[in-house]
């Protein structure tokens, strides 16, 4: 599984959605992405890439695309 698949998988797991839907998601787009779901997503991402996310980044990660750029630029994940 490459990094993008792992990244997408974290969203699928956290929100119980299909990969296609995951790619367009933003915070509060679906009921599952609420504050509770967000906590779950962060844990999934941290586990998948063995990173510890900074609180400032946790609250900024508001969409699939934003997270992707963030992990690439700040956490050195090849995405």
């Amino acid at each position, binding site marked *: 599984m490459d990094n993008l698949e792992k990244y997408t998988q974290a969203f699928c797991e956290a929100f*119980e959605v299909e990969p296609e839907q995951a790619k367009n998601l933003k*915070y*509060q787009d679906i*009921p*599952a992405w*609420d*504050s*509770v*779901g*967000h*906590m*779950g997503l*962060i844990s999934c991402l941290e586990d998948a890439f063995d990173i510890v996310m900074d*609180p400032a980044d*946790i*609250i*900024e990660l*508001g969409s699939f695309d934003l997270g992707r750029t963030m992990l690439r630029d700040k956490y050195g994940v090849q995405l």
Partner: protein
Amino acid sequence: MKRSPKPSAPSAGDLLVKLFSPAGHTLFSHTRWFGKRPAVIDDQGSMLTYESLDHLCLAQAVRLIPGQVALLLCANTLDCLIFYLACHRAYAVPLLMPADLGSEQVRRLCEHYHPAVIFCATARPDLEALLPGLGRPGKFLLTHWRYEQAHPDLRLLLSTSGSTGALKTVRLSAQNLESNANSIISYLQLDGRERALTVLPMHYSYGLSVIHTTLLSGGILLMTTHSLMQKQFWDFASEYGATSLSGVPYTYTMLERLKNPWQKLPKLTTLCQAGGALSVPAIRRVGRLCEESGRRFFVMYGQTEASPRLSYVPPSRCVEKAGSIGIPIPGVSMSIEEGELVCRGENIALGYAENSADLLLGDDFQGVLYTGDLGFADDEGYFYLTARRNRFVKLYGNRVSLDECERLLTERFPQLVSACVGMDDRLVICREGKGADGAVPEVKSVQSAELKRYLSRTLGLNAKAFLVCEFDTLPRTSSGKLAYAQLMAALEDQA
């Protein structure tokens, strides 16, 4: 000789005078004397003074009739706040539910409570198909139920279980709400300088009490629909100088995960926690951080049936008394009777309702609440809870009735045998049939994920709160009833 006026029910004329004369007093009407001071600021940057809030509220109040039930599908928005206050102004009876309550739940509520009006935070086109004869589509919907008589003291209906849309509601009076709000204002020492963030939803008794106490003390409500896991929330809190934040245990789990960002807000000096038990280590951690930085951390306890606050731990004792629900708030007395916590006060609800006929009922509880919580008091009069007498679980601060969940599942999946139990802060659905010999095909075809999804959607709670466990057969007592103790033991073995 002075003649005293004969007491009688207010006529329509009296009510009009009450509505429009400055002397008329309803629950929030006197807040208009706070005049040009800001009352609410929302995350769109809109600001309303107490005076303009009052005008907007009157404009809505004329559309309502005393005694009518108004169903509010509410979110933390200015619109909803104004409409809620308008209901009080017009002596209508608001019934508060979350904005995203499922269509089916809305239909059931309507059939039981006959609301004359439905006010929606966001447009709900789905409701038009559901309820024939609804007025023009929009946020303000007129149903075909016109006028229902409610008991003159009845001012508010709140769901017993936070967000579930359960049919059972708590009947609250103006005296209940006012006495509780005043008591909270006194022990939290709220004054006009308060700028309270709305972290919790308005349909939840604890979230609503933040609104009540802030407005009645002349403070500023900072209303946001963002969650504290979003940057916008913290930008808003910082820009408008939030002074206090109220949350449930899960709020504090999130705050700790974010390394307590409130520490970066020098004006935010009051933190409150209620809505279930926060773990003792977490209370100590937050308590110490607050102590070190000159902030106040209030651990509190309440129930919707108590409008809702019952007790609190004074911040100076917070670390030392961690795990206690504290001492009674002013005006409330608490005692342990046959092991159960019993509370008395003017804030104790009138009683319960399950349909519109119940709205005529008077004061059933007579100021006494049997909480269903078992506990004890220490020698300093601090109360501690040990267990619950009834079957409830707290999910993200929402009290969810396990019996109600079982009923929902049976209604939706009639073929399925299932039981619901609470484990820590999760609800476990125990189901029968999958893979068992002789199971009927319909049972097998009900997927476990479907059960989870159904409860999560119906109750409006994140799916992470639910677990499904599969059993060949569920343990039963000799009389055929589900044996919950055995079921719990089996689950603990599995875990």
